[in-house]
């Protein structure tokens, strides 16, 4: 353990000594490995096992112990499938759309901090960057819906765009409360602000913003669920009416891209929620820049991400699908006004207290 610890700072030092392009290659490699792993973890734990238990069945049991390898087997199956382009489709846009969705996911991971030094790129406007690149996936979904030359796909793409635009606003507004409290857009800065905070003078566990921004946390969770087009917000991919929406013509590894994009994004958004509202990688009792946190931070973050994901997937398996008008009404008439009120109250309290 001691050996690992003494090697931790030197690992950071070695990385800093490398030239810019070497660092970039290593960082891109790390992100490229983390995304499929994250998608596998969430897919197995929640989509396969938790959903099965919620529905009183066992779920996959054959591939590996308790079906642990089921998703790997599914992935292999997807890779073997025929790569089909619909006859009238726009081939280039059709092929580019899933990549665009995955690029959006990829860029999200860049800004997620899991320790004092363990972050791919510590961006000055981290939160803002996350919100900006998360909106790129809409373009990919619209591309997929149009290029498939299929009316169900087009309807799905349009529904997705309408929904994602509507829920991006509460997503952004919910975060503003946290930004006002922390006084910074930087994700590391937000973690530090929570770590150094005190609850009525009691600073033992820092000050996770969920206590003051609970409304923001709820709105953020609802909005990310809608951004992921997961049930109950799955009008865009409703299989019983538009047979899968914009995904309908995709087969094999192109469909796998959409799957990885969805679960990879769920993972990283849960991570962003933990950073913004639950204190991020900080462990009470440690110095904020101690090297222990570079080791413990990722573990703590994983636990928090799983907890937040549990909530998201719990909603997913519990509630029936919203109708289109209910969906828009919830965003524009409930979430946005509540988020705006939250911003105003937070602003007043920030100045007054």
């Amino acid at each position, binding site marked *: 353990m001691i050996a690992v610890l003494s090697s931790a700072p030197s690992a950071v030092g070695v990385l800093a000594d490398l030239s*810019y392009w070497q660092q970039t290659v290593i960082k891109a490699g790390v992100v490229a490995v983390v995304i499929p792993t994250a998608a596998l973890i969430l897919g197995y734990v929640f989509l396969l096992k938790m959903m099965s238990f919620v529905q009183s069945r066992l779920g996959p049991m054959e591939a590996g112990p308790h079906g642990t390898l089921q998703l790997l087997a599914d992935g292999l199956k997807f890779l073997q499938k025929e790569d089909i382009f619909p006859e*009238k*489709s*726009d081939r280039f*846009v059709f092929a580019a759309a899933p990549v665009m969705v995955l690029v959006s996911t990829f860029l999200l991971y860049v800004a997620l901090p899991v320790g004092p030094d363990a972050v791919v790129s510590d*961006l*000055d*406007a981290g939160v*803002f*960057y996350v*919100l*900006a*690149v998360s*909106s*790129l996936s*809409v*373009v990919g979904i*619209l*591309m997929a*819906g*149009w290029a498939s*030359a299929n009316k169900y796909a*087009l309807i799905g*793409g*349009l529904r997705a*765009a*309408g929904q*994602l*635009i509507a829920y*991006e606003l509460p997503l952004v507004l919910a975060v503003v409360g946290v930004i006002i409290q922390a006084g910074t*857009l930087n994700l590391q800065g937000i973690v530090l602000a929570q770590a150094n905070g005190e609850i009525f003078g009691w600073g033992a566990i820092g000050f996770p913003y969920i206590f003051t921004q609970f409304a923001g946390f709820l709105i953020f969770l609802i909005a990310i669920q809608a951004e992921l087009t997961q049930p109950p917000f799955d009008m865009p991919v409703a299989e019983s009416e538009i047979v899968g929406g914009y995904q309908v013509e995709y087969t094999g590894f192109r469909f796998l891209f959409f799957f990885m994009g969805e679960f990879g994004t769920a993972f990283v958004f849960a991570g962003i929620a933990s950073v913004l509202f639950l204190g991020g990688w900080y462990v009470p009792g440690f110095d904020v820049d101690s090297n222990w946190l570079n080791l413990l931070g990722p573990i703590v973050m994983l636990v928090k991400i799983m907890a937040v994901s549990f909530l998201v997937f719990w909603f997913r398996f519990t509630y029936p699908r919203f109708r289109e008008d209910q969906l828009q009404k919830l965003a524009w008439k409930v979430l946005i006004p509540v988020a705006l009120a939250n911003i105003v109250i937070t602003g007043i309290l920030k100045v007054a207290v």
Partner: protein
Amino acid sequence: MIFSAMVAQNVAFWVIAVAMLYAGLRVVTTRNVVHAALYLVVVLAGAAALFLLLGSEFVGITQVLIYIGAIIVLFLFGIMLTRAPMGKEKSLDHPRKLPALLAAVIVGGVTIYSVLDYFGDEQLPRESRTTTREVADSIFSEYIIAFEAVSVLLLAALIGAIVVARKE
């Protein structure tokens, strides 16, 4: 070290600039309206990348959030809601090509001339990173009047849109 950083910056600039020019030309020459919108994504992403290259992180990210995340999505949404033709479209052409070219040349020429005339050989300082805090401070102190004016303008536009869209 400084030299190599400069070379890397120049290479990045030229790669981005050439891609933007090509995509910009394709926006006006392509015969498919959805393709035109998608080429516009490349142009705007290039502009964001140039801002990042200049060290203006906040402006670059805003470019992505507003232009790609909102305006292009609205374009695509509007196109697909009304008509979304596959393949080439004959009617997507304009008969007055020469005046359009003339207008483009004049606008481009005036912009290039004014930039060159104002800045000349002056160069940005090498370590010119604008932090978000600086941007925020300047908006809410130096440019507060402009900021408030824009807010009122946007509010008026919003209310106007609602008034126009209302049936009664």
